[in-house]
């Protein structure tokens, strides 16, 4: 790889990012600009920002690698990503969120929930949950990006991590949400074009669509014994129903991430950045096309990488990557693609990491600043923009510290954990805020608390993938998990915690005081 060419491309890219960040800075005058991009963002920018924030290095490197192991069954995650993550999210959640957010003058997702249920406590708890849980998600994206920079530039990991963090911090702190969304639109465009080319070239390289699929289908007898015992029956087939492999694919990967997207604070705030539902209607097209390519194409390439590596060296993708899932896609790009594309793909990965991280830092910063500290000291006149900027700096520091502690093959898992926690904690209350006028303040508060508590319990004592390495269950009960009956130890915590959160919301609602009609009229003004 030519270092000069690589350096030149990266400098051009960073100059473009700097310019867009500066544009955001120039156009940011008020707290509304800093927190909500002035509520007048173009639908293309909104949709690309939503997509680029949603699709991080986790989706490309982590889930692309997962597709190399699990096969094409991951296409059902693409179905949910488009159907739930775009169609339902924009039309059934986004339109009401935009209008209600404006009616209630909400600038963040916790503030939206707090104002809807007339509870500062809900805003503070939600802000705290985001600030405690999101750094894990940010850390896996940050580490993914830094590891990639380390391997490409052959520089020390700590330098790569510092460099990566500082660039993102600069335009997030200075440009606010406008800076974040402008840069997201450029980064999303780079990702889209790269992933589009990647799949087309891969099919051509493997002899065409049908030939590639047939080649992969014929490899079913090469599934390692350890995997076929768990239910893996090939890379162009869904796992055996009710097998361990099936439960992990369906609950942890497809449902955990596919449903969790509806309750992502950094995505929900995007709905409040446009000035009318017309922008959201238009954004549905752009968002749908982007997610189709960004997830469907990389999942397919991940599965097909097995055929490429088998033709080249007689090994499976995971064997070539020495057992590290996160190294499969970078290894495939280096081995299968032309050199000029390696440079472009490197920009796509940088873009994927930066676009997601910038939104995570912005969301964590506003959560700790506007939602948490401002409400803890209500009598002090605190500058929203300043406190959010301080919050962003703290968020970056916490993410870096967590990042240093993480093990390998963690990118997809860390993402799924955060998506699951978000869904269990926020989705029932968020849905009720939009569609159930009867839901009460106390019920909403306890639903959030029970969602986070049930998630923490399931991760610590039931779901063996986390409970075993955490070791708390083993220390107290002398066994890695309390779930001794199949399949409870491998069912994703979202399927345990979210029903609890829903039940708590419904039951407590019927025993507590209704919210006043006057306030509900204000919330739903102009919403049909």
């Amino acid at each position, binding site marked *: 790889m030519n270092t000069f060419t690589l350096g030149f491309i990266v400098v051009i890219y960073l100059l473009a990012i700097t310019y867009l960040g500066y544009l955001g800075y120039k156009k940011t005058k008020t707290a509304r600009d800093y927190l909500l991009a002035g509520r007048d963002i173009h639908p293309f920018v909104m949709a690309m920002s939503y997509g680029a924030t949603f699709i991080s290095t986790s989706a490309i490197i982590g889930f692309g690698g997962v597709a190399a192991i699990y096969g094409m069954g991951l296409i059902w995650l693409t179905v949910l990503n*488009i159907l739930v993550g775009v169609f339902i999210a924009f039309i059934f959640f986004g339109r009401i969120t935009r209008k209600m957010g404006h009616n209630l003058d909400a600038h963040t997702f916790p503030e939206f929930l707090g104002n809807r249920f007339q509870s500062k406590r809900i805003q503070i708890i939600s802000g705290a949950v985001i600030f405690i849980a999101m750094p894990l998600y940010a850390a896996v994206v940050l580490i993914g990006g830094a590891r990639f920079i380390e391997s490409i530039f052959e520089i020390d990991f700590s330098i790569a991590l510092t460099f990566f963090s500082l660039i993102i911090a600069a335009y997030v702190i200075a440009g606010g949400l406008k800076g974040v969304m402008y840069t997201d639109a450029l980064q999303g465009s780079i990702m889209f074009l790269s992933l589009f080319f990647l799949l087309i070239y891969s099919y051509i390289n493997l002899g065409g669509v049908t030939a590639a699929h047939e080649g992969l289908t014929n490899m079913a007898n090469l599934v390692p014994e350890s995997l076929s015992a768990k239910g893996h029956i090939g890379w162009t087939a869904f796992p055996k129903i009710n097998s361990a492999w099936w439960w992990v694919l369906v609950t942890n990967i497809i449902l955990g991430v596919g449903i969790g997207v509806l309750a992502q604070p950094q995505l929900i705030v995007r709905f409040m950045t446009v000035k009318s539902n*017309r922008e959201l209607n238009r954004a549905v097209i752009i968002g749908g096309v982007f997610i189709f390519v960004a997830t469907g194409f990389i999942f397919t390439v991940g599965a097909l990488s097995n055929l490429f590596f088998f033709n080249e060296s007689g090994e499976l993708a995971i064997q070539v990557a020495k057992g590290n899932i996160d190294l499969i896609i970078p290894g495939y790009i280096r081995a299968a693609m032309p050199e000029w594309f390696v440079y472009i793909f490197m920009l796509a990965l940088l873009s994927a990491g930066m676009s997601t991280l910038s939104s995570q830092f912005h969301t964590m910063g506003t959560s700790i600043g506007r939602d948490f500290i401002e409400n803890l000291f209500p009598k002090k006149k605190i500058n929203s923009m300043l406190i959010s900027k301080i919050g962003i700096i703290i968020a970056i520091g916490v993410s870096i510290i967590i990042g240093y502690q993480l093990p390998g093959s963690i990118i997809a898992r860390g993402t799924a954990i955060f998506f699951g926690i978000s869904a269990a904690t926020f989705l029932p209350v968020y849905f009720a805020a939009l569609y159930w006028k009867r839901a009460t303040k106390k019920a909403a508060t306890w639903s959030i608390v029970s969602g986070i508590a049930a998630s923490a319990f399931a991760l610590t004592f039931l779901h063996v993938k986390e409970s075993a390495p955490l070791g708390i269950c083993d220390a107290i009960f002398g066994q890695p998990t309390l779930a001794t009956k199949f399949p409870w130890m491998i069912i994703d915590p979202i399927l345990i915690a979210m029903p609890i959160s829903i039940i708590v919301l419904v039951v407590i609602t019927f025993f507590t005081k209704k919210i006043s009609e006057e306030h509900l009229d204000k919330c739903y003004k102009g919403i049909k």
Partner: protein
Amino acid sequence: MFGINDPAIYLGYLMAIISLIACIVYGIINWNKGMEDSE
């Protein structure tokens, strides 16, 4: 179908394409709608 024998997989691809078409059709039909609640 296209070298894939498992219906669960090719139905998945079909559903992804149908979902994409639904997004495009919805966006086109409502391209100019939604300005009524846009100072």
